[in-house]
């Protein structure tokens, strides 16, 4: 039954994809319709009317798009239902589909881990399907055919869901690559700009290489599994030596890390996410990265089984680098979606860091604390999927209304787009992990996990983990700075360009509904985290075979990891407190009607003529940090002044240019590209075009081989 729900989710997303293919088939349908009229002449007039309008030039595309996204929504609902039901009755459903290799049908397994990620995907998909129709209206059918968009969106979602269902390496890889390839087409959807093509190319290649690494990871396991079987059951029981297990772990880390966007294999992410349509980048950043996380967890905790301490150390270090690197680069971005992409890198870094903590505790024999860390990681993944989807959708709304993604050209949108601005405020508060919002709870749990370090004996770990925690703290603080900048520059202040002056609030209800859903959930789970955390407990108990039920005791009010003595957090109480305090002083101070606000000009220090250009914008806002951490980026900053007058004292004109490059390009990727081209040139030399040389080759080959055999 539960599996049926899960299958329905997949099938409906595929359906919506294939339905989108009918975008160009209007004439066929009308022909069919006329043919049908001849067959069944007596049809009620009302039906005729309806069908006619549906098939009319004007409405057909509109209705079709609505229908496609409706089906998508259905699939999302099914996904949520399936996820919830498996999480609630915490069973394990297995099945086999008669596809795949002759001796290996597709194995399907649906447990609470899959269920959780089903839930994540489902929520995001529902929000997207609410959001989508309004968003795609902007595309003209000629240059950006909806058929392509819809088809690959459907396949993309189906692929992600199937990854969660897969229970053998082959099916897993097929689903995985389906996800990658379809998202490649989505990234390349607006392929006029060469930047987008480049991004798509980069994305595809890295996806393929990553997939190969994952396959090799499975290969290591299979070669130890009995009978070379690819089923996850066989892989679970594979007896690996420590070193081979480590090799498998590293392979999978590279493979899944490429998809999850860990530094330094993150470069596809800030290229690909900005260029995809916004609801797609919401799905990619909010959900697909989580699927990579799922793969990592499945591979590392479930298949490899007994984890090792040094894996945790590796994860912590890489996670810390990704987190800090991600947020540092995010701070310097001017393109809103690029910024969000980099912040995704940061959040994935945090998640992997916490996962590393959990691995260490698991390996050191403290399963309960491991479970705590595991829960923290999963919860942060869940939250990130919520607020990052929200942010990307919001960015889409802004792009849709302002026709602009450069933060530096926005401003003052809070007055022109009241609803969007409120929802985005929620998102910004969640992502900068402020209390009462979901981002805070997961980071709080992460800190609580890190603070359990005292139970460990190993001195190195005992000193490593607190430093990691400090890195986490720094990341959080910088994230807050980053999103203060985002919200402050985009929504507050005065408009910095004509576009943002003319911007209007979005009129499409659906888009706002999509945003509001996510925003609401962000707040809900910020105040009542226990709802999700008890589910996460099930996951932990299934994956780590260690419920932390006695680690976190869950009731709706208190969140107390380990013990009440240790720490506790009651978000509802905090909420109440804030409300009471706020209400009292507001009430008290506002009682006198004579004290109403008086509107007046902004104080201009008596000089007059404040212009929007005098405001801080995104570059100047992050200037102090740029000065302080200048080593982190590859900065090219040029200021050239036009001076004239006596001793050229008087500055007439100043040109300021700033370009901030990602080090990993200069250090890793450009060299690789250069090397490949050089290699190709070298190898090209063997093909001289002279037939006698060719004959000499085959002659030499023959001689050498003969010499070898005799």
């Amino acid at each position, binding site marked *: 039954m539960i599996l049926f729900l899960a299958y329905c989710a997949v099938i409906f997303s595929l359906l919506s994809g294939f339905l989108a293919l009918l975008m160009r088939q209007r004439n066929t349908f009308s022909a069919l319709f006329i043919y049908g009229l001849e067959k069944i002449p007596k049809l009620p007039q009302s039906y005729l009317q309806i069908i006619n309008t549906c098939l009319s030039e004007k409405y057909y595309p509109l209705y079709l798009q609505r229908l496609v996204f409706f089906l998508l929504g259905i699939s999302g609902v099914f996904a949520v239902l399936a996820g919830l039901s498996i999480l609630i009755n915490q069973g394990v459903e297995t099945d086999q589909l008669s596809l795949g290799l002759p001796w290996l049908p597709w194995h399907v397994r649906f447990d609470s881990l899959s269920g959780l990620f089903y839930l994540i995907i489902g929520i995001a998909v529902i929000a997207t399907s609410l959001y989508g129709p309004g968003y795609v209206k902007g595309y003209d059918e000629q240059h950006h055919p909806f058929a392509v968009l819809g088809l690959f969106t459907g396949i993309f979602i189906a692929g992600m869901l199937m990854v969660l269902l897969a229970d053998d390496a082959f099916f897993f890889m097929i689903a995985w690559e389906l996800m990658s390839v379809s998202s490649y087409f989505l990234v390349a959807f607006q392929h006029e700009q060469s930047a987008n093509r480049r991004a798509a190319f980069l994305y595809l290649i890295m996806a393929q290489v990553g997939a190969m690494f994952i396959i090799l990871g499975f290969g290591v396991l299979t070669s130890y599994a009995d009978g070379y079987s690819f089923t996850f059951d066989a892989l679970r029981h594979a007896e690996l030596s420590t070193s081979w297990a480590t090799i498998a772990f590293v392979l999978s880390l590279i493979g899944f890390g490429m998809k999850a966007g860990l530094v330094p294999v993150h470069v596809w992410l800030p290229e690909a996410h900005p260029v995809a349509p916004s609801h797609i980048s919401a799905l990619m950043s909010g959900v697909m990265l989580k699927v990579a996380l799922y793969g990592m967890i499945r591979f590392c905790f479930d298949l490899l089984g007994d984890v090792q301490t040094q894996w945790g150390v590796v994860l912590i270090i890489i996670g810390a680098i990704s987190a800090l690197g991600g947020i540092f680069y995010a701070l310097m971005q001017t393109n809103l979606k690029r910024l969000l992409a980099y912040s995704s890198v940061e959040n994935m870094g945090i998640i992997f860091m916490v996962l590393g903590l959990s691995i260490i505790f698991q390996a050191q024999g403290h399963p309960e604390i491991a479970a705590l860390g595991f829960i923290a990681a999963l919860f942060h993944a869940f939250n990130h999927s919520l607020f990052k989807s929200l942010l990307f959708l919001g960015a889409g709304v802004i792009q849709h209304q302002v026709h602009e993604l450069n933060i530096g050209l926005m*401003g003052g949108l*809070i007055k022109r787009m009241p609803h969007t601005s409120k929802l985005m*405020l929620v998102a910004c508060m969640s992502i*900068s*992990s*402020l*209390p009462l919002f979901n981002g805070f709870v997961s980071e709080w749990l992460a*800190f*609580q996990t890190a*603070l359990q370090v*005292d139970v460990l004996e190993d*001195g190195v770990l*005992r*000193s490593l983990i*607190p*430093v990691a925690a*400090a*890195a986490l*703290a*720094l990341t959080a*603080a910088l994230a*807050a*700075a980053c999103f*203060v*900048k985002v919200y*402050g520059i985009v929504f*507050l*202040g*005065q408009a910095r360009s004509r576009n943002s002056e003319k911007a209007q609030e979005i009129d499409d209800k659906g888009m706002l509904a999509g945003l509001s859903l996510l925003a609401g959930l962000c707040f809900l789970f910020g105040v009542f985290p226990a709802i999700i955390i008890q589910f996460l407990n099930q996951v932990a108990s299934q994956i780590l075979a260690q419920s932390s039920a006695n680690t976190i005791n869950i009731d709706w009010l208190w969140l107390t990891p380990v013990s*009440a003595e*240790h720490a*506790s*957090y*009651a978000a509802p*109480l*905090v909420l109440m*407190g804030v409300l009471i*305090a706020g209400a009292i*002083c*507001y009430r008290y*101070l506002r009682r006198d009607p004579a004290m109403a*606000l*008086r*509107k*007046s*000009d*902004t*104080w*201009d*220090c008596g000089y007059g003529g*404040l212009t*929007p250009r005098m*405001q*801080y914008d995104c570059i*100047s*806002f992050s*200037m*102090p*940090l740029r000065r*302080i951490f200048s080593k982190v980026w590859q900065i090219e900053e040029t200021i050239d002044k036009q001076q004239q007058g006596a001793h050229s004292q008087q500055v007439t004109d100043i040109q300021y240019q700033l370009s901030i490059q990602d080090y990993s390009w200069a250090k890793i990727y450009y060299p690789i590209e250069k090397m490949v081209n050089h290699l190709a040139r070298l190898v090209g030399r063997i093909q001289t075009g002279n037939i006698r040389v060719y004959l000499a080759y085959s002659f030499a080959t023959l001689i050498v081989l003969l010499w070898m055999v005799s």
Partner: protein
Amino acid sequence: MNWLLALIQTLLFVSLAPLLAGWIKFCKCYLQNRKAPSLFQPYRDLWKLTHKQPVVSEQASWLFVIAPYIIFSAMVLAASVVPLIAVNLPTAASADIIVLVGFFAFARFFLTLAGLDVGTAFGGMGASREMTISSLAEPAMLMAIFTLTMTASSTNLSFAIGYVLEHGTVLRPSFIFALFAMILVAIAETGRIPVDNPATHLELTMIHEAMILEYSGRHLALIEWASQLKLMLYGVLIANIFFPWGIAEQLSFSALGYGLLNILAKLAVLALLLAVSETLFAKMRLFRVQEYLSFAYLLALLGLLSHIILES
């Protein structure tokens, strides 16, 4: 009963905050051979401000208006969880020290947004600098706190304080480092000399004042009050975490009164020290603050490591 006590403690906190500010001013003036205003001058200012009609820029949005209330209530909430005169109060359990830092972040978030809202150069400048400094200070503070919490193996303030109390006077190297780190961070976070100068208005070096430049009337009052609260919060944290002796453990009147006197004394001393340092030192350039804070960070780290290496 306990809840009532907690409420009283919170109110006490809120009401004493301006007094502390007054006391610091008083000491400074005394040290700088100026005639001091009365200790209760801050109360007068707040009163006056609350009875003035606030002027709001046309550029300002709703966020500008509600920000003061949010900031103030966040601070009040923070006050409610920090043990002032007694430990084991129920409110303390509802939020631990990490959440406390969260509250500060919350307030700061809205303060900076309010600074950016009007769209003046000053506001943006203040916001940018505030976020820069805080993003450096916050980790240092957390590190310092971690040192304590790992010793007490609890992030719950009153439990931690109780732990320190019952173990008596143990000379911990980690605590010394942590204390200094904490002091440095506190100075930075509360915008005192040498990081920021609360006494200035309209200087290119100011940070906190730059953000609230547009505020007036009750809004300004709330923000001022909130910042005084913040100052006092840091003071109480330092006092009660590192020198918790005298704080009331059982809720008898004598104990509570004793605790109150104790904390007042401690705060007075701390304030005096602050005044002295503010008199001795001059304000730093903005881009030397990083060195200052990285020193604090270093101290905190040393504290943590010395806890791990020396004390276990």
